[in-house]
């Protein structure tokens, strides 16, 4: 980033040692489910001592529709559009994770062009997810509207790309077992290239606007710190884990798809606080732009769907498979058990934003109520995925 950023040490912000007149008296407050900063219908039962959080219990299930059972009553192909509704910001990566699991289950090869298209769409998804997350986070901090609209302006361009390719802005239903549903035209690829080439300009502008902002620094640095040991034990994944300095990215570790062919770096944080989590997103977008540039230069004409796959009346062999990808929010996995029939016997989604909430209480204890919103915003949750 071009903005100069004060370090934590330079700030010498004292730890929260607020005292209150209500010392020892706990007040139980139910934050949510209808609260503008809970990103959907999420509730936290908070015990407050004055303004300081002493206990926090998340309450889930307001959006629960038993996605997994519906998946067990539907054919393998029938679940594909339904995965769009999990994390409705990132339907492309949801599709990919599900397709990857089924491909593992039945050993399906994916043609080269489809692999490139998958990478391009997944990284575009990451760009728009991270951009809008930063916008929402600023919104939670009180910077109403403006930063979010800057982010949404960029997101809109990417959603237009999704729409012209798949027919839908958010519920794309684009991938299939063994490839993708429709091919991208040369015009589409040229349009994508144009948007990708202009994206760093937005990042510079946005970085200048928020990352060095004094209020943002005061509200985020040293807030909601998470230690690397706890993060690993609690199964935290994605940018939130890497903000603690743990180098673990499924794109590098598993090397699924064509990721081993691309040159990109994994940004790592140092303090594991909210500011580092925010920075992780900003830096990851730069790397995504690098991947996109390489992928758009390398993609060649060819088939996009493995012609040997019988997508309709698809029956995989008896057994099970677990496939996972690095979704923008963390490790998204699908665990499938097949009994040889047209429906999966067991269909399980490993939702990153649900598991990333495990340590919400640990991060919030000792902070004031206003910080809870910022910490929750930096986790990056979508309730469609949390409650399933």
């Amino acid at each position, binding site marked *: 980033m071009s903005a100069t950023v004060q370090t934590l040490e330079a700030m010498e912000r004292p730890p929260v040692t607020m005292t209150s007149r209500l010392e020892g008296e706990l007040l139980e407050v139910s934050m949510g489910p209808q609260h503008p900063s809970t990103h959907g219908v999420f509730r936290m039962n908070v015990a407050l001592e004055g303004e300081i959080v002493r206990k926090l219990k998340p309450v889930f299930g307001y959006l629960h529709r038993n996605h997994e059972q519906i998946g067990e009553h539907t054919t393998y192909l029938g679940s594909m559009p339904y995965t769009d509704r999990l994390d409705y910001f990132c339907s492309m990566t949801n599709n990919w994770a599900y397709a990857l699991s089924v491909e593992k289950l039945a050993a399906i090869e994916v043609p080269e062009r489809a692999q490139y298209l998958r990478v391009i769409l997944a990284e575009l998804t990451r760009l728009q997810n991270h951009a809008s997350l930063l916008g929402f986070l600023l919104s939670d901090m009180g910077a109403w509207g403006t930063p979010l609209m800057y982010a949404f302006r960029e997101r809109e361009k990417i959603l237009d790309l999704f729409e012209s390719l798949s027919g839908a802005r958010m519920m794309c239903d684009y991938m299939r077992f063994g490839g993708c549903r429709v091919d991208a035209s040369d015009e589409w690829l040229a349009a994508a290239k144009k948007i990708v080439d202009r994206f760093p300009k937005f990042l510079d502008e946005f970085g200048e606007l928020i990352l060095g902002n004094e209020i943002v620094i005061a509200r985020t640095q040293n807030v909601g710190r998470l230690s690397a040991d*706890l993060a690993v034990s609690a199964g935290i994944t994605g940018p939130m884990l890497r903000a603690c300095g*743990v180098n673990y990215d499924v794109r590098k570790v598993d090397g699924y798809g064509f990721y081993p062919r691309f040159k990109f770096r994994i940004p790592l944080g140092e303090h594991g606080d909210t500011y580092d989590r925010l920075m992780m997103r900003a830096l990851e977008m730069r790397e995504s732009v690098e991947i996109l540039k390489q992928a758009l230069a390398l993609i060649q004409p060819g088939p996009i769907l493995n012609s040997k796959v019988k997508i309709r009346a698809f029956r995989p062999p008896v057994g099970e498979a677990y496939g996972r990808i690095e979704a923008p929010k963390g490790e998204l996995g699908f665990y499938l058990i097949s009994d040889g029939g047209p429906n999966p016997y067991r269909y399980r989604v490993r939702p990153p934003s649900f598991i990333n909430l495990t340590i919400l209480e640990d991060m919030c204890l000792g902070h004031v109520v206003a910080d809870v919103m910022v910490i929750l915003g930096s986790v990056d949750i979508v309730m469609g995925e949390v409650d399933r």
Partner: protein
Amino acid sequence: MELLEQIKARIESSVPGAKTDIVPNGTPSQQHSLLIDNAHALAVAHFLRDDPTLRLDFCSNVTGVDWLDRVVKKTIKIKTVVDGFEKEVDQTTEEKIPGYLEAVYHLYSMAHKHGPVIIRMRTEGRAKCAPLPSLTPVWRSAEFQEREIFDLYGIRFDGHPDLRRILMWDEFEDYPMRKDYVQPDDFEWEPTPHDEVLARAKQHYTARPELDGAEKITSHSDVATPDK
């Protein structure tokens, strides 16, 4: 990473009394799993996490599976003597497998970047709140996921710090992910029920008074007569 057979042998030599079985997986994914016995599960989990060559410090996915009573048919060829000649005859044997609930853990190592090692635990039977040991003391990431299994499958995890329902509401009584779960037929109220919904609704709706010509949805014989 080591082969599953090696891991199994090392578990059995390091944790005294532990019994493990390899559950083969027939798909091309080649993800075989390790069935561990419930009594030593916690010790085995500690071993898997702390062993320096394995270091499975990241428990990615925890989930439940419900297996109903099954009958597995096996056909084998046996040689019998028929009328003085030796013949090969197909003999079908049926093996009854009583139902059980299963908890499956997908373990990875962030330190060594390998995995997955898949471990399973099985309950005795499919009773309500069938017990299994909780592995949350070993991997914190199991906390919410074990709560979810408790909620949707009805496995009771002994040793879990906060075992409550997580997705369904606290007053809910059944376990909706079980294979023999039956949906209640009045879970969704419709102001003007019709077709199948009307047929189901008749069992539950009380008759409305006909004062303002409101449509009755139950027949006269169903209407409860008030005590005089």
